[in-house]
């Protein structure tokens, strides 16, 4: 588009120069291009500088600091210590506990949240009257912060809380629910349920935008053929959503691996480390114990995990042509 600006498109100030001499044209052009370069860089630089400062430098630092003994606040400059932090990390039972917990969380949350979100998307898709109202309702937890959601459910999960009262009511007093968050067997499922409740509306919207890309002609053709509802879903909707599906899988997985806020507000990793997570461990090391180097090592391992898992998912869900 902007490839070769003719002299006619030069700014007014430059046009004042007599255009009769042919030797002046290249010089004008050069001047014009120099100005464009300068203006372009002036517009780019704030964003580029901030991205360098707050994304690239910390990314490089994660690599660098993980091999030092850096502390958050320390009068001494960091000293290179080789792979000490990683040796310590891979000997740490808490870290394996965190890995297992996060794997447990992800394996349940990913299909559950994607499935609930898809069900909701199918229920509110299309132009049925009253459906918009439900879309708004399903979306409300998404605009509620995870911190507030965690506090609210902390209250609902109490031994004498709302959830157990409902359970007692519905079963006519036969079942009395546990103290959800103070029990090693129920703490993680409780966090899972709440996380799905908060996040499903978000992915409902993404499923919906996927549903809208499927051509209505296909459904019309299917209606003429008198196809059943399940067949419509199985042979038109499901294949039509393949791109959306892999996208949703990857985003929920990364979100699940990064589990932190719920644990920080509700359980602080307990009871008995049954809800500790990788990010929670990293924050405890880097912030509470001020060991930036050890926290960087955890962050690096975490990033490697995210990369590997998303690469595997991408490979498994690739377009098979």
């Amino acid at each position, binding site marked *: 588009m902007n490839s070769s*600006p003719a002299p*006619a*498109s030069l700014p007014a100030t430059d046009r004042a120069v007599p255009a009769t001499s042919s030797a002046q044209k290249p010089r004008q052009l050069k001047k014009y*291009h120099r100005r*464009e*370069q300068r*203006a372009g*860089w002036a*517009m*780019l630089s704030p*964003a*580029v500088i*901030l991205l360098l*400062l*707050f*994304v690239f430098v*910390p*990314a490089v*630092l*994660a690599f660098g*600091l993980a091999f030092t003994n*850096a502390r958050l606040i320390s009068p001494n400059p960091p000293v290179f210590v080789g792979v000490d932090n990683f040796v310590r990390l891979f000997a740490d039972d808490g870290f394996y506990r965190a890995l297992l917990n996060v794997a447990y969380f992800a394996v349940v949350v990913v299909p559950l949240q994607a499935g609930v979100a898809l*069900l*909701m998307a199918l*229920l509110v898709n299309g132009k049925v009257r009253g*459906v918009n109202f*439900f879309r708004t309702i*399903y*979306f*409300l937890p998404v*605009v*509620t*912060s*995870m911190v507030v959601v965690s506090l*609210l459910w902390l*209250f609902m999960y109490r031994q004498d*809380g709302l959830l157990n009262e409902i359970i*007692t009511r519905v079963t006519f007093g036969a079942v009395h629910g546990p103290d959800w968050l103070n029990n090693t067997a129920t703490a993680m499922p409780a966090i899972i349920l709440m996380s799905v409740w908060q996040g499903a509306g978000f992915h409902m919207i*993404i499923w919906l935008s996927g549903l809208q890309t499927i051509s209505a002609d296909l459904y019309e053709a299917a209606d003429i*053929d*008198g196809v059943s509802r399940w067949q419509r879903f199985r*042979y038109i909707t499901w294949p039509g959503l393949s791109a*959306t599906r892999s*996208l*949703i899988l990857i*985003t929920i997985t990364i979100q699940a691996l*990064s589990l*932190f806020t719920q644990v*920080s507000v509700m359980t602080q990793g307990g009871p008995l480390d049954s809800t500790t997570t990788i*990010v929670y461990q990293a*924050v405890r*090391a*880097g*912030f509470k114990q001020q060991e*930036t180097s050890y*926290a*960087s090592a955890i962050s690096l391992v975490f990033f490697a995990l*995210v*990369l590997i898992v*998303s690469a595997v998912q991408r490979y498994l869900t690739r377009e098979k042509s």
Partner: protein
Amino acid sequence: MATTLESARPRTRVRSSSPSPRRVRGIGGWIVRILLGVVFAFPLLFMFVSSLKPDQQIFGDLSSIAAFLPVGNLSLDNYGAVFDRVPAARFLVNSIGISAVTVVLGVLINSLAAFALSRMKVRGKGVILTLIIATLIVPFETLALPLVWWVNQLPWLDLNGFSLSLTTGWLDTYQVQILPFVANAFSIYLFHQYFESIPKELDEAARVDGASWFKIYRKIVMPLSGPAIATVSILTFLPAWNSYLWPLMVVQSEELRPVMIGVQYFFQLNVSWGEVMAYSSMITLPVVALFIAFQRSFVNSIASSGVKG
């Protein structure tokens, strides 16, 4: 696609769909919709209704439908008590300020970068685009801990009265809560996509008339980019308002804290749940109100964030 449809055809001939099961399914669909609606709405309803009740009544109402109804002894007492327990007004002002500045700077800086990338010939553009896209895959959680160390080394010019002084370390400041979140690769990407859809003939015509690049950005491209601005604003505002992990680590002073950190005032024994629900409602309702008012933009921004990844 065509083959799967073809293979579905023979079987469907056999089965004829009578209208009555379809109507039953229609009713079934509404039952599921309503059930899900209850599941998603009632906890929030419970939160808001409880914020108006004294603690004793909250627990008394738990075993009946009254838990979700604004009945009994209703008052705003819990809200008043929250302001006594927590510097809530200060936190609200901080969060509003931090979110607003982050959104305004974010829209400005990211759209400028996207404009240069979409409209202008800049040397090194390919490298910059690659770098920007590369940052999309890094979750903030992996950068947070090294970033805490890094911001603690950064210099800042402090203005005390009329004297400037150079300080080191951004911990416990406003800028540490704003500047790391201003430039955003995804916002640049969204603006870039949108700018590409605006005909370039428009700014070429303006160039002929002698308009500067900045004028084209300000007078032509930005006025046409309302939906992109709305999307980026919402996607910047929500995490800014909801941020928890970051301010937890970098802000210690009470007067600099945002709303989400305020929940820590309730991490104690003998807490009044009415007050917790009041504080929670107070920091949620503004966002819900924004959502109801700009519903279409919210949904569009979430849908567009789907292309990430």
